């Protein structure tokens, strides 16, 4: 079986590789947690790309029910057809709408199934999927049919920790917590996204970025995705590293901070710090 070792556009740390490969080998779901913006959702896309398998994503909302992932019975359509005298009405199978799990179980090449932000759903949601994810099969009540995965898909589940997941569910998963990348890894990540970026600019931008993260009392610390946006801006504005550095001493607010600070209070905090800094000088 092919192993996942990261891709051209995704830097995977060794621990992440072990976790993904373990889930691949043992065919168990992989639960990914981590700070927002550390690449949880992107991971599934990149794993699919690296292994050359199709990706089926199921994005969870607060109203999503577990049943919707399996199938839905479109009773209203059937009712309408029955009143219009449509012959299709005699086969109930015509009104069974397949969910993402069903699609994944049926797919010809073993797909990657992404269940995104599982914590958004109701507390009972993971419990309702226990058996389905464990055995990779379920029963369709309306047609008396059992859907079973011929090849077990790799299930990648992401969570933002808004709700605790039930123990029984956790026991069946592998778990990986994506840590915030350190400076070296971050440099690699930026390099992968913006090849050929000027090293001096990168160095300076990373220095400013990690300084911003160090500022105490920030409501939302900027993360990888914000850094990438910011660097994109810097590159397109063609700022020189010196300009960035100049921004450091005169006023504390980094250039084009809108990409890094997403919160009014955080911007205020920075302005206050800058003010105090200037007075100090």
């Amino acid at each position, binding site marked *: 079986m092919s192993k996942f070792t990261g891709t051209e556009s995704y830097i995977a740390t060794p621990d992440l590789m072990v976790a993904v490969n373990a889930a691949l080998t043992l065919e168990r779901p992989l639960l990914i*947690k981590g700070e927002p913006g550390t690449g949880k959702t992107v991971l599934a896309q990149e794993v699919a790309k690296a292994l050359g398998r199709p990706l089926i994503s199921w994005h969870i909302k607060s109203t999503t029910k577990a049943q919707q992932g399996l199938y839905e019975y479109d009773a209203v359509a059937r009712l309408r057809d029955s009143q219009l005298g449509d012959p299709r009405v005699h086969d109930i199978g015509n009104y069974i709408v397949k969910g993402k799990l069903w699609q994944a179980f049926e797919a010809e090449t073993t797909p990657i199934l992404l269940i995104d932000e599982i914590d958004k759903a109701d507390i009972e949601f993971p419990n309702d999927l226990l058996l389905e994810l464990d055995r990779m099969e379920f029963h369709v009540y309306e047609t008396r049919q059992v859907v079973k995965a011929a090849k077990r898909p790799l299930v990648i589940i992401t969570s933002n920790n808004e709700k605790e997941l039930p123990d029984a569910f956790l026991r069946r998963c592998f778990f990986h917590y994506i840590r915030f990348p350190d400076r070296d890894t971050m440099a690699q990540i930026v390099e992968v996204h913006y090849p050929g970026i000027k090293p001096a600019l990168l160095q300076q931008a990373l220095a400013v970025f990690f300084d911003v993260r160090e500022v105490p009392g920030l409501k939302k610390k900027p993360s990888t995705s914000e850094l990438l946006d910011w660097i994109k801006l810097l590159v397109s504005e063609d700022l020189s590293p010196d300009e960035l550095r100049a921004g450091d001493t005169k006023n504390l607010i980094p250039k084009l901070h809108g990409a890094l600070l997403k919160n009014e209070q955080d911007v205020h905090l920075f302005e206050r710090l800058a003010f105090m800094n200037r007075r100090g000088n």
Partner: protein
Amino acid sequence: MFLDLFLSLRNAKVPVSLREYLTLLEAVSKGVAGFSVEDFYYLSRSVLVKDERNLDKFDRVFGQVFKGVVTEAGSLEEFIAQIPEQWLRAMAEKLLSPEEMAEIQGAGGFEELMERLRQRLAEQNEEHHGGNKWIGTAGTSPFGAYGYNPAGIRIGQATNRHNRATKVWDRRDFKNLDDNLELGTRNFRMALRRLRKFAREGAATELDLDATITGTARAGGWLDVHMRPERHNKIKVLLLLDVGGSMDPHIRVCEELFSAARSEFKHLEHYYFHNCPYGHLWRDNARRWDDRVPTWEVLNTYPPDWKLVIVGDASMSPWEISTPGAAVEEWNEESGAEWMRRLLDHWPAAVWLNPSPPRHWQWTESIAMLHEQMAGRMYPMTLEGLDQAMRELNRGSAGLAPPR
């Protein structure tokens, strides 16, 4: 050897079950971890730990368990006997030069290899304290990871790339995620959310689609519309907050709890007290002298289905609880213990949240007294504590018979 890890994790209160242990064995036997200890560490972490709050505990236990192997075994020979052969081979390849390997292959095979390895390790052991190249090159060997010579391995950690491997768990990167830390508002809200209890009450204003479809089908196609009331959170919370004196260091965390509770519960009433609730409570701290409410009135206003949450450090002189007339701010006819008993009788679902760290509790007599009076329902004001408290409140409402 893995069993030790498993049991130590359980002792350290990391929730691992047999199922995870079997999964780990399965993964190891399928060769997921390869032959590197680092990979084994990552694999076991991914299998056994399911919550980032436990990662730090895991790192500590992992370090301990695999250090322990050496100290228990004593001699180097016994230690080597405990390690799988593949790992030894892998390590030998790292420690010995290709020429040496070839020579050994020619001469004596595995025994010879082990002999050479032993010499090399002994040599390394001696040279450790000097801190020369040995330390760097052995960075990924299992011996290092097992803490064969922890003192040596730690030299120059930050700079040497090879060394990084051995001390992944010693770095304890996940320390911050331990759930015994103080909380922010958002975390508070998530914890308080446990207490939500939804119920449908009031006028039927929402279309109940499922019931409508079932009803229509049953009526043979005639549209049969069903309505139902909206869902509301019907939990009611009475919050009593200790202010002043010894509570001053905890003001911030109390404010956060208060604002979280404010936004989380529609039915929230709060009163203040000082040290221990007596005959009077007050709503507004600035007017605590002229706008006091008799506690009896509060007792009579809110029915027993309200949940009582008391926040206070419970640190005072023991007499303030046990003796009438000992309160610092008012003349109390009845003791604090008596008032507490009344509150708890009236609201069976009650918890006490204490912002002072639990390790101090047993040294303060008044905390012990109140802890006893709360029948153990005193919790630290941490994420874990709050979580337990909310569970207790939920349980309390179901488990206890309605009072008088």
